Each structure stands twice: as structure tokens, then as C-alpha cells.
């Protein structure tokens, strides 16, 4: 499951382990397509990582904090530290590989 969160919720949450952040926006076509792909990946990798969706329009500070210039952007955090980022739509297998290599 990919959980939609706000900046406040993000700041308050437990970030231990691997967290995958999906930075998106409602009017962004590629973001809309990546959403369901990430949802599938999150089901298959539920034991490995936690998945969050962040609307950049509602949470610009968080986007700035993570240096997001273009979306969709997938950020991988290890114990709250950014370890990797991928910008743009990617097919499911590529997305899984990208997350897996950062586990």
C-alpha cells in the first residue's frame, strides 16, 4: 500500500528502515501513470519497505528539502537519510530493481 502523507505526518513518522517516497502532483500525466505501478510494487515489496505518496503542490517544503526539481520523483530513504532518487516514469521491473538495489 502507498500511503498519502502530509509534511507534518512525514516529520512525525517513524523513519527507521527503508521508506520510498513518491513525489507527484494531480495534473502531472506521468505521475498518474506511475501511481498504480508503484501501488503494485508496494504490495510485492511490503516486507522490504514502506511506501508514501507526497503531493508536491500541497507540500512544497518537503519537495524543496529533498531537492525535487522535476516529477514524478521516487526517493529512497534509509533510516530517514536520502540514499537514492529516480526522476520520471519507469516501468515496473525497473522500479523494483531501483528500490531493491537500495535495500
Amino acid at each position, binding site marked *: 500500500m502507498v500511503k498519502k502523507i502530509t509534511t507534518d505526518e512525514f516529520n512525525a513518522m517513524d523513519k527507521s528502515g527503508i521508506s520510498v517516497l513518491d513525489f507527484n*502532483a494531480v*495534473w*502531472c*500525466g*506521468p*505521475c498518474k*501513470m506511475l501511481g*498504480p*505501478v508503484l501501488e*503494485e510494487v508496494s504490495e510485492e515489496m511490503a516486507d522490504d519497505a514502506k511506501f508514501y505518496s507526497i*503531493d*508536491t*503542490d500541497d507540500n*512544497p517544503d518537503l*519537495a524543496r528539502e529533498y531537492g*525535487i*526539481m*522535476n*516529477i*514524478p*520523483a521516487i526517493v529512497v530513504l534509509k533510516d530517514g537519510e536520502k540514499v537514492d532518487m529516480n*526522476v*520520471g*516514469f*519507469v*516501468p*515496473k*521491473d*525497473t522500479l523494483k530493481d531501483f528500490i531493491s538495489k537500495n535495500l
Partner: protein
Amino acid sequence: MERFDVVVIGTGPAGLEAAITAKVRNKTVLLLGGKGSSDKVSKAHTIQNYLGLPDVAGDDMAKAFLDHATKMGIEITEDKVNAVYSMGQYFAIQCHNGDYEGSSVIIAAGMTAMKPFPGEMENLGRGVSYCATCDAALYKGKTAIIVAYSKEDEPEAEFLAERAEKVYYLPQYDYSGSLGGNIEVTLDVKPESIEMKDGQAILNASGKTFTANGIFILREQIVPSQLVPGLEMDGNHIKVDRSMATNIKGLFAAGDITGAPYQYIKAAGEGNVAALSAVSYLNELKKNQ
């Protein structure tokens, strides 16, 4: 939404042959592209090495190809493809006039002459982007440069300008619009190169320098790796194996887009192979369901 077995993009010899072969194999086919086949065919003077059509004029050859497709009950859907997304079990094809779905896709869109600017690919996703509406939210209080190639990009500039502090708009077409406010239009400048420095994007164009937080390039032609995110390229061509398979499962390519020699019969032959490979892929997909 109807999900087609095979979606073919391009109506040159590769695309038409792929559509015909898929149809012969009883698959549902969506053929996207121009109604008049490829300009490269119809504008050729004479072609001497196409088996069965000796010394044929280009426009006669195009007509023969299109008649063949029509006889097989294949219709061309005239639309411009913006992006093909590999969704796992299927593909979402975003077009100008709507969206389509296919279980497999064959890209036969020909060669694009488009060359990226120096510094463009290196900074893609790090300040250089092709979708201004996508990233608008990230430009609150920031500045952006738009290199635009059609008047259809003007609303996109306005959308971005609602959020951004300032937008530099550099039309590469015959501009007669009325963009204003915080959009500064500069005519007759040709972009030459892009660099990123201290988080700022710098565009060098016709002796002028434009600096902003990011650059959007809104081309009409899309390179294959942008058309299909995640697609593996070999230089300017799509990387394929002998079965015309790309690195993305269910996605095939045929014709000039896979590389030289740029020959009509080679394109048609590859279209045939790509369609047969798509058919085997579909059978496999069905078995696993």
C-alpha cells in the same frame, strides 16, 4: 477501455506490415499514425529493390501499402502519441486526442532527426524537463525558461506562470500570441547549449544568456527514450534483438527506428518479425493468466 492485443505506432512499411501480420494472426490491432503512410515512401522518386514491385514510384508504393492494409480491414487512427507507459501487464498509450490501452506495442515511428542540445540529457530531471504542467508546483516563487516549438505550448506557459515568479518564453516557431504579465517573450533566439551551475539552469542562445531555476523544452518531436520511459537505446536507435524485442517486455520496435540500413523492405521485414514476436508474447501472457 478496450484493450487492443497489439498497438502499432507508425504507418510506414514497418508499421503497416506489423499491423497486417498481427491481423492475419487474428489479433485486435490499433494502428496509430498518419493516414498517408510515410513521407519517406511517398516522396521517393523510384524504388528498385522492393521484391515484387520493380521500378515503383514512391507514391505508387505508398498507395499499394495502404490499399493492402485497407483490404485487410485495418484502419489508421490519426493521432499523435505523446507517451507509452509500461504498466506491467499492459501499456497505456497517451495520445493527443485521448488514451488507449494495449497488451503489446510495436514502435515503428521512423527515425527522428532531432538532436538534443549539449547539456540537455545530462541534466534531464535535474532542472531540465519536457513537461511544464507536471512540475509547475515546484516552481512557486521560482523562475523558468521555456523553449517552445508550437503555439500549443502557450497555455502550458500560462499554467506555469500562475505559479512561477517569472517565465522566459523562447518561441522556436512563428509566434503571434499574446503572452504577457510575468511571461517575458524573446523572439528570434536559437538555443545552443544548457548548463547547470549552483542550482541554476543556464541557457545559451544566439549570443544571449538566460538564467533560471529550470528549463522546459517542449518539442513536437520526441526521442524514443522519452516516448517510452525506461526504453533502452543504442545511440539514436532503439536497442532490439533478432526478435525485435526491446528491453521492455511486450514492447517491440521495427523499421528505421531500430537502425540502418534504412531500406523499405528491411523495415517491412522487421514489422513482420515484430508482429510475430508480439503474437508469441500474447500467447505467453494468456498462458500465465
